């Protein structure tokens, strides 16, 4: 048993976007604030802070989860992926991100980081998604700009592109 005392900082070691990462956190520090203020990855947004809006969604051990309902100390030993993991390089967008751009699947962009991570996790498990599945996934996110239709379109387009890419890899 380990007891991490209130008011003191404790070491947290985890994997962030495939690389080992470490920081220090008080028990009360939320994963959102830990990522943004301690680690310095600010792609993950902070919205409602009670798990409703979905802006803070990150991947924890391969599953989309609310960073605002997770303590930094809970992710010790876990694999965390954030929106920063999606672009292959700082000057290029990933497939899902490009599809969002083409389809105007974002306007203000506040909800986008969370939605991208949810969709990224989803498309890994469901390479041939239908619209119903995508809409069910998007129930966990609030977007006040787009009306969701362009997001669904972008997700379907990205899934097709990812499937083509997969084929090319297997053929080669």
């Amino acid at each position, binding site marked *: 048993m380990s007891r991490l005392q209130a008011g003191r900082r404790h070491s947290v070691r985890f994997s962030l976007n495939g690389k080992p990462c470490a920081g220090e956190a008080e028990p009360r520090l939320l994963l959102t604030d830990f990522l943004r203020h301690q680690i310095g990855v600010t792609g993950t947004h902070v919205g409602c802070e009670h798990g409703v809006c979905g802006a803070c969604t990150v991947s924890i051990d391969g*599953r989309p989860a609310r960073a605002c309902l997770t303590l930094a100390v809970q992710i010790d030993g876990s694999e965390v992926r954030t929106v920063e993991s999606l672009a292959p390089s700082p000057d290029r967008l990933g497939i899902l991100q490009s599809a969002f751009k083409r389809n105007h699947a974002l306007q203000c962009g506040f909800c986008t980081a969370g939605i991208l991570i949810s969709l990224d996790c989803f498309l890994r498990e469901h390479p041939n998604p239908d619209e119903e599945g995508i809409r069910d996934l998007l129930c*966990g996110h609030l977007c006040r700009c787009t009306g969701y239709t362009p997001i669904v379109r972008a997700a379907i387009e990205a899934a097709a592109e990812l499937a083509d890419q997969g084929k090319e890899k297997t053929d080669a």
Partner: protein
Amino acid sequence: MKPAAFDYVRAEHLDEVLDVLGREGGDARILAGGQSLMAMMNMRLAKPRTLIDIMHLPELARIERKGGTITVGAGVRQASLLAWPELGRSLQLAALALPWTGHVQTRSRGTVCGSIAHADPSAELPLVLQALGGEVHLRSAKRRRRVAAKDFFAGMMATARVDDELIEAVTFPVVQKRCAFREVARRHGDFAIVACAVVETADGVRLAVGGVADMPAARDFPRLEGSALDDALNGFAYELDARDDVHATARYRRDLVRMIGRDLVREVLQ
């Protein structure tokens, strides 16, 4: 907002959990998936001095079928139960209700027992436990006891659990009868305005309703049709003591109980 300060205990043995609960009682809270508790803490509606993380105890993360019951441990996440290959065959009502429990993004961490411990009157899993007549397994350093669902829920977010007890598991009876589930919410996955579950019984149906009273309520009905069924549902809807809130009026909730109730009873008895 941010939670108030607390000590975080990462338990590695069940004894440690029971020991801390025994010593600190109501000042300590169990942290499982955190999908209800962390929201309450962020809003400062809960300010525990100690959080006991039970998610590193493999013995609590099991789903077991023994004879006629299914035991779901305190560490079993909602997503894990939904992915359990036997779910559709053994626990059909949970298979129907789980997709309505929060969202993919909260089921990934939220636990089955956590939702039942939180006892939100609109939540689906307490409703399923109530509809099937399940049991809650409570354990402290001094004693172990089982409480039937009908005695466990005590009011709005209130249960029969006392401060030094851990909900070690819940059990659902395997019911090989027809069942149905439906709910109405503003957004799929949000808390239900009204949720209804119907299970066939030997001489009729049991209807369980969430979101209306301050805890999930169940009632057995004989086989009824037509206006006799409508009258029975109307009587039940009025007895539920529906409340008005920002989402819906009490009258609208009674309407939903009557309409969804009738549809589901017909579906199960057809």
